[in-house]
């Protein structure tokens, strides 16, 4: 079976090379000096602040609504349960441009809620609220999906035991299910956050692009592409570094949970 081992190694090498070569090329193209100079420019800094601010707010919304939703979906079954899960995952495979148009069809001036919001004096397009909505829309499935798996992985025997000891549903959730699912939740959380940082298509359509308001890092990269190519690459490198750091960090979260098996 030697040839099979060899085949696996070759396939793996091809995958790694194909995925990494473009990123390596990106780093080769900008010197550390240029990188620091470009990042010192106002555009990159403004975009970084907008990105971190909108991503943080979006992430709180994703965790706040996504965690209980995932718990319900993982612990209860009802008619249309699997359809609900499938629909929640839909934004994962939707082209971001479609997401942008879809958001406009709801929250835009001529959208479903447009008139109602007009009456209330709320206008979302071209504001940071639009960026937050775009990020929540495209990133939340990454968390919810992972969270459902994490809650489903919790030993139901332990939940039962807690219930027979007369723990309230809230205590079962907060003291048993949540800690046991923590690692999976953290992974999903990191994935969703990183996806949110890179959000482009829905944002540019729904929120537009304005420096210091709605111009996030990916939009700034696109904007700088014709102005200052070096700066565009420098901001790209920054985005890659942040994402890589977050993804690596999540691998290092100690698995202090003795009950669940994790693949590392």
């Amino acid at each position: 079976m030697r040839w099979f081992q060899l085949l696996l190694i070759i396939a793996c090498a091809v995958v790694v090379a194909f995925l990494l070569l473009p990123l390596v090329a990106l780093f080769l193209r900008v010197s550390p000096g240029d990188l620091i100079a470009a990042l010192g420019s106002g555009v990159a800094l403004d975009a970084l602040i907008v990105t971190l601010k909108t991503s943080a707010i979006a992430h709180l919304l994703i965790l706040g609504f996504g965690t209980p939703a995932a718990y319900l979906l993982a612990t209860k079954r009802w008619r249309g349960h699997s359809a609900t899960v499938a629909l929640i995952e839909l934004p994962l495979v939707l082209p971001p441009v479609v997401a942008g148009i879809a958001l406009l069809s709801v929250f835009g001036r001529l959208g479903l809620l447009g008139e109602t919001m007009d009456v209330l004096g709320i206008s979302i397009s071209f504001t940071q609220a639009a960026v937050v909505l775009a990020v929540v829309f495209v990133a939340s499935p990454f968390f919810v999906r992972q969270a459902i798996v994490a809650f489903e992985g919790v030993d139901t025997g332990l939940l039962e035991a807690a219930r027979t000891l007369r723990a309230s549903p809230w205590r079962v959730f907060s003291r048993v299910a949540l800690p046991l699912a923590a690692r999976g939740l953290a992974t999903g959380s990191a994935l969703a956050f990183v996806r949110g940082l890179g959000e482009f298509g829905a944002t540019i359509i729904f929120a537009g692009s304005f420096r210091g308001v709605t111009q996030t890092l990916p939009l700034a990269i696109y904007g700088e592409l014709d102005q200052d190519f070096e700066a565009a690459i420098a901001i790209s490198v920054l985005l890659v570094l942040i994402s890589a750091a977050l993804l690596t960090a999540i691998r290092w979260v100690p698995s202090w949970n003795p009950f669940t098996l994790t693949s590392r």
Partner: protein
Amino acid sequence: MTKLAVLVAMLAVTGGCGRDGAEAGSRPLTVFAASSLTEVFPELEPRARYQFAGSDDLALQLREGAGADVLAAASLNYSAELHDEGVVGQPVVFATNRLVLAVPEDNPGGIRSVDDLSAPDVRLVIGAEGVPVGDYTRQVLDNLDATAVLESVVSEEEDVKAIVSKIALGEADAGFVYTTDVRSAEEDILSIELPAEAQPTVEYTIAVVSESERKTEAQDFIDLVLSDEGVEALEAAGFGTP
């Protein structure tokens, strides 16, 4: 420079792979053209393969070695720069355009002239700096001594089609676009003419890409665009001709 060479070599290798598959003669002529020409060129020459984008993006792609035969840009500057760098041949002016102030059909902002743009709550969308339509817009506002309206800008778009769609969707109250763009979206958009003396010189240039392997056909395409037939098609779409 070596890094760049590696990248170019990689592009060449991948480009080569694609070419092996098809017979050399069957590949259609590839034309890179400014977004605003989307309605004109395919009708004039349906057999060519087109890529429509912002002229700045097209320039970038050509510099990175994208395989095209003809470049038709919405600006003299980009083609002149590319010509100096040896990326394209001598550019020729083939069309002119005008800027107009575009508003949604129902004109929610009640815009009648450039002066109205300074009113509070007006949502103005323009092209970003470095994008031809964005640079022309700043020039017009400069000519009108009305740069204060830039305060109303809520979004800076990377190509003119993005401005048009935001107006057509009613999200923006107004935007500066080419008169030809309004024609292609005339059900949803009204245009307000700008004073002639404020108009910038918007010239479209066309040139053969130096790396092209089909220079004769590329030149034939350019001749077609400059012919009476080409002039007619351009004028029908609202362009001026030199």
